[in-house]
């Protein structure tokens, strides 16, 4: 049996899945003052009377880190930066104490100016005096050579509670994002670690045979243990849970649009040949762009509870939410009221809903039923328009090779998969607005918890080899090793896959046999004075992202 839990901003959903069916579903309000209480309450409910030994997987998606950041309830962080020459680093100083250190590394990973020990010592003293226990160290091009980041750490006093090293976060280049990601990781470490400890206590007490895995924003999971050094990876995993849920409920090999229609927002995501699209760089949170890999998801301020208004003879929907539907005692009329008026939804005070819709209709000279229909049509139209705009943007993303320009590959969705509570009620309007078949999977209302339950571990790794220097670097592993003469792309690819396999065994032993793939590989000749002096090789590998289909072959689902 699989357990999935998705903690959203307002609701927390938990499901228990066995034999390709949802055995139990539990929904509760998320208590922002007590996340742990919320999680344990949901798990207690879902596990009541179940033999713990039959639980094969326990996956959690939590907003705890997101919330700590958004509400500013995070630990003070001391930031040690080595920006070297380049863009003015003043705007990167997001820590409570910030130190700009001397030293620099270039794009090939060659140190071009040294660290100054006295500066690090002075920073250390100041941090100690201020009582700051959480640090983040980030250097420009540290993913090409982490030796300066490591030397900075080495020069500090021992005994800080938590130190994030920039090069361990991601192999992607982007110094500002590395700085912010390192900062956020250290800022939430304490909050996250107390949450993780409590979850561990819970599973031990319940005698569950599996350790929980935590959902990441890329739609994969990470073991609870591994997540404690990378808590930032757990931010904003909610949309990923929904997308993976949609995939589990309606597997496809086509290009598709996924809509998750909620109360306040509609999240829009895309599948390319059945595989979810990623954010090109990383997700942004509370104004900080990060290197946290995430599935692409756009949040449109339009949902069942969006407030409806008539302004200058025109109907507007959202983006605000003033409360629940009029039928449930809310102040503003909402699309949910339109659904109630049309008899598609049996909920709350129907007369109040009808009254609200009629008032809007009066301002536009429309009868009540016409008004309700027009609201839903407009809502679907706005969702379709925004989806098309996103698609146009995605299809004009830059490419860097002749082959790609000539191929001109375009995403052309053939279907729309819709999840979220109002999904089945809006299918007809959406079909008309998109001009595409709309699929509303059975259980669309709990897709996110299903997605959490069925997601599997993912991890990635970047290998850079410089045969002129005779060095190989894998930043995510903090690895830097010598390579023999004759090292080439093929050997680099094999080494990268081997290292990824080892990483996967360490992070998620239960899926060690899973399929790995090469995402990107390049090999460039380096030439000096018209002679080839070596090769610059770059390989990116990942665990192929996937989800256990709800009614697939896996008999343990």
């Amino acid at each position, binding site marked *: 049996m699989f357990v999935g839990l998705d903690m959203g901003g307002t609701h927390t959903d938990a499901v228990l899945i066995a034999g390709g069916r949802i055995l139990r579903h539990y929904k509760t309000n998320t208590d922002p003052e007590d996340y742990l209480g919320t999680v344990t309450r949901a798990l207690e409910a879902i596990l009541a009377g179940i033999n713990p030994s039959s639980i094969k997987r326990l996956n959690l998606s939590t907003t705890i880190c997101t919330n700590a950041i958004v509400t500013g309830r995070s630990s003070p962080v001391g930031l040690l930066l080595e920006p070297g*020459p380049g*863009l003015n680093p003043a705007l990167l100083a997001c820590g409570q104490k910030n130190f700009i250190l001397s030293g620099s590394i270039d794009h090939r990973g060659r140190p*071009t100016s040294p660290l100054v020990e006295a500066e690090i010592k002075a920073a250390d003293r100041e941090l100690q005096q201020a009582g700051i226990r959480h640090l983040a160290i980030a250097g420009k091009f540290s993913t090409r050579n982490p030796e300066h980041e490591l030397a900075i750490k080495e020069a500090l006093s021992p005994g800080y509670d938590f130190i994030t090293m920039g090069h361990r976060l991601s192999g992607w280049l*982007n110094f500002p994002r590395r700085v912010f990601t390192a900062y956020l990781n250290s800022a939430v470490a304490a909050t996250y670690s107390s949450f993780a400890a409590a979850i561990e206590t819970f599973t031990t007490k319940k005698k569950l045979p599996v350790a929980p895995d935590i959902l990441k924003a890329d739609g994969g999971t990470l073991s609870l243990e591994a997540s404690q050094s990378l808590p930032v990876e757990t931010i904003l995993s909610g949309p990923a849970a929904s997308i993976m849920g949609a995939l589990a409920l309606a597997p496809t090999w086509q290009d598709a649009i996924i809509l998750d229609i909620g109360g306040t927002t509609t999240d829009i995501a895309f599948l390319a040949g059945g595989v979810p699209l990623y954010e090109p760089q990383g997700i942004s949170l509370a104004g900080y*762009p990060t290197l946290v890999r995430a599935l692409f998801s756009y949040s449109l301020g339009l949902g069942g509870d969006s407030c409806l208004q008539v302004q200058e003879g025109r109907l507007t929907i959202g983006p605000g939410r003033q409360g629940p539907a009029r039928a449930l005692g809310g102040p503003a009329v909402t699309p949910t009221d339109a659904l109630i008026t049309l008899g598609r939804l049996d909920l709350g005070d129907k007369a109040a809903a009808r009254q609200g819709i009629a008032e809007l209709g009066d301002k536009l000279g429309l009868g009540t039923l016409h008004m309700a229909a027009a609201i839903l049509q407009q809502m679907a139209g706005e969702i379709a328009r925004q989806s098309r705009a996103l698609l146009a943007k995605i299809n004009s993303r830059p490419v*860097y090779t002749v082959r790609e*320009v000539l191929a001109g590959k375009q995403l052309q969705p053939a279907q729309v998969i819709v999840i979220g509570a109002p999904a089945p009620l809006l299918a007809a309007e959406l079909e008309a607005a998109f001009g595409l078949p709309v699929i509303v999977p059975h259980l669309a209302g709990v897709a996110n918890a299903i997605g959490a339950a069925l997601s599997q571990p993912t991890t990635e790794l970047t290998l850079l080899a410089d045969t002129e220097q005779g060095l190989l670097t894998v930043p995510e592993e903090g690895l830097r090793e010598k390579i023999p003469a004759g090292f080439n792309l093929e050997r680099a690819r094999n080494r990268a896959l081997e290292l990824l396999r080892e990483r996967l065994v360490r992070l998620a032993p239960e899926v060690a046999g899973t399929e790995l793939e090469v995402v990107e590989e390049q090999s*460039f000749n380096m030439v000096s004075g018209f002679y*080839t002096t070596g090769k610059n090789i770059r390989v990116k590998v990942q665990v192929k992202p996937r989800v256990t289909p709800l009614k697939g072959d896996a008999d343990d689902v």
Partner: protein
Amino acid sequence: MYKAARRLGLVFFPAFDWAISPTHPEREERLLYTQDQVLEEGILDIDGIYEYRPRLATVADVERVHVCVPDVMSRVTASHLIAAGGAIVAAEAVLKGEVDKAFAIVRPPGHHALRIVHGARGFCNINIEAIMIEYIRRHYGKKRIAIVDTDCHHGDGSQDIYWHDPDTLYISLHQDGRTLYPGTGFLDEFGGPNAFGYNLNLPLPPETGEEGFLYALDHFILPVLADFKPDLVINSAGQDNHYTDPITNMRFSAQGYARLNDRLQPDIAVLEGGYSIEGALPYVNVGIILALAGLDYSGIREPDYSPARVAQSSRVSDYIARLCDETYKAWQQRETLRAAYVRDKKEISRRRQIYYDTEGLMETQEETTLVCDSCGGLTWIDSRTDRGRHILAIFIPRDACRRCQEEGHALFERASAGAYRDGIYLQDRVADQLLKK
């Protein structure tokens, strides 16, 4: 986060799968480290900086500028069309008002490609700036355009294409042709009879430093631009003046390039040469991007920068001061000089030899232009190569007067196909078409 003071469009096309040859300066790796630096600095996350996807320029876009022999597709690869298309995408972003400025960081470059194209010259097959500029004029109306070519090599191709065009001012700063390819670009190359003075060359001595370039900008380029009053300024942004460039002898730095662009503020910059792919390009390109976007570029510095590497001798300073003075005076007296040059001639001819270094090909051109006071003038070129090709190319300019148009068509009708074994071409810019017989 960072916010650009001016919105900047970037077209970044490193062509990671295209090279002239594995060890050629113009190879796959050329923009690799620039991309690394741009990504690592987080440039693409800056609010107000937008990256655009390049597209292919069409054959018609190329034929608006060039006569390719025997035709466009046998003279270019996809990469050339993407470099030109990338420049067009950059220009359109500006002309549509989506951004204030744009920078096309594309390869291969184009400023050595002349009007007639028999092959590659100086790594260039087609002139990507000229294709962009004529695309702008075709789709966004008549514009006065100034090209400031800061590549270390003289842009003989751009000079040739705009030789007869008084609406396009071509200014080139380059290392003296007596010391560097292509060996042209002297003061007396002043423009054709109907555009005399609209082609300005400033041949700088080897070892010109930071100071010399900025002096030329302040004392020559900016004053000329103030007189010409262009609607658009294009920078042919060659980066081979850098002190680390392996094929030139100048002493310019990334700071220098950034400061030059900060003061010049071109509407569109298009990458040309620059072959110090590790020591210069990453820093120069980032410096230019920041300067164009109105961001602080004072922290941009090469790892091996020192004031001594960009210093110039007082002999060089004196020489440049005289050069600027002389060239600016010639510009101011262009009307008088033109009258003396044209006198009462009806047509003016020149004969030259053009060397295609990549294929070791020699072309001989006999070029004739009608002297015309109301347009750029009809021009025709009899072109032969030492491989036995022989063509006649007739050029009717964009805003040709009635007489020049009629004469052009009459010449095309009259010329006998038997006399030119590889064809007779008529580039009719009024009708925007290329005819061949």
